[in-house]
């Protein structure tokens, strides 16, 4: 019994690839066999997030063209034994593959992997259609910014008319300091607007950029961090565990902030 989940957003740059890399790694660390599929043909980045860019020999297109077996194209991660990556072609575009071909690849992967996470490109055109074709579930990633929420809503609308029945939300790059000052849309407001179940909340953190620079998903780092904990919790929730959401607002009770809020009362 395997699960094919597409990670999408509409808006670019909200953290789909970061989520795919870290969620996949976290699930693999829990013992699941995980295949990550980079569906961003022409602008691939999943390889960078995983630090596997030097190890790519064949891509999904080579498999489809019959130039190599699927197994040969899969890049294995020495640090995470249960995790593999099916790379996208970098020198082609979104038109290089069809929804049918995506389904074919995922079908083959389904025989060996418990989870197949598809990293969807930004937009709602061919790349998006390709990525959602094989999926049974979707994780929508948004940030607390107007454009991201609007685009996420559009994507939810598009999903509703497809075969994807389970849709969850991840709110990424949350800034509790800004929410406390009422300069950022709150979690509750986003849920009120989008009306899809929340899967997780990940805070904005410079450590994510650092971990990308190093080519090591933040969940693998020795030292724990809020984003890493958030991703691990999301993985646990996918596995059925009912964990409470991180209280990111608790870190906002510093003296300065309390003073500001006190003065706001007059």
């Amino acid at each position, binding site marked *: 019994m395997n699960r094919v989940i597409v990670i999408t957003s509409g808006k670019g740059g909200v953290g789909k690839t970061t989520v795919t890399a870290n969620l996949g790694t976290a699930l693999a660390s829990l013992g699941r066999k995980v295949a990550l599929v980079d569906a961003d043909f022409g602008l691939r980045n999943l390889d960078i997030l995983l630090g596997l860019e030097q190890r790519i020999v064949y891509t999904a297109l080579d498999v489809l063209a019959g130039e190599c077996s699927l197994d040969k194209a899969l890049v294995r991660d020495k640090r995470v034994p249960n995790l593999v990556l099916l790379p996208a072609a970098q020198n082609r575009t979104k038109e290089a593959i069809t929804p049918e071909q995506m389904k074919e690849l995922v079908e083959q992967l389904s025989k060996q992997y418990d989870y197949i996470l598809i990293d969807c490109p930004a937009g709602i055109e061919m790349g998006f259609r390709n990525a959602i074709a094989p999926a049974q579930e979707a994780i929508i990633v948004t940030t607390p910014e*107007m454009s991201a*929420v*609007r685009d996420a*809503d*559009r994507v*939810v*609308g598009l999903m*509703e008319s497809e075969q994807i029945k389970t849709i969850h939300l991840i709110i990424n790059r949350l800034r509790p300091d*800004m*929410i406390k*000052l*009422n*300069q*950022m*849309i*709150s979690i509750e*407001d986003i849920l009120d*607007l989008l*009306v899809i179940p929340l899967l997780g909340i990940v805070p904005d953190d410079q450590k994510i950029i650092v971990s990308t620079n190093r080519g090591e998903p933040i969940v693998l780092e020795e030292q724990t961090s809020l984003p890493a904990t958030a991703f691990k919790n999301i993985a646990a929730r996918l596995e059925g565990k009912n964990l409470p959401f991180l209280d990111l607002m608790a870190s906002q009770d510093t003296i300065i902030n309390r003073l*500001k809020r006190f*003065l*706001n009362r*007059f």
Partner: protein
Amino acid sequence: MLQQLLPWLYPPKTGEQAKHRLKLILAHDRAGLNPAILESLRREILEVVNRYVEIDSESIEFSLENDQRLTCLIANLPIKRIKPYPTDETETTSKVESTPSS
């Protein structure tokens, strides 16, 4: 009063602003209605309603709202008086005395 002395302590609550703007934006996006169609719709609904009752055109409210993931068209049309017979637009000048309804 403190707000006047120390305005820099009271920045505008743009988080709320964003939420309100998004509510409207999503309602319109979801309905898939462009402003021209919405305007035609509004005009035609008012024409039909006007045949049966006289509307206070100053206080008309016409909007798209969100509930869960459904968009609703909400029209608030205050009635000035009820017309005795359904009329065409051309007959609105007829002198029919009747007590104005509240």
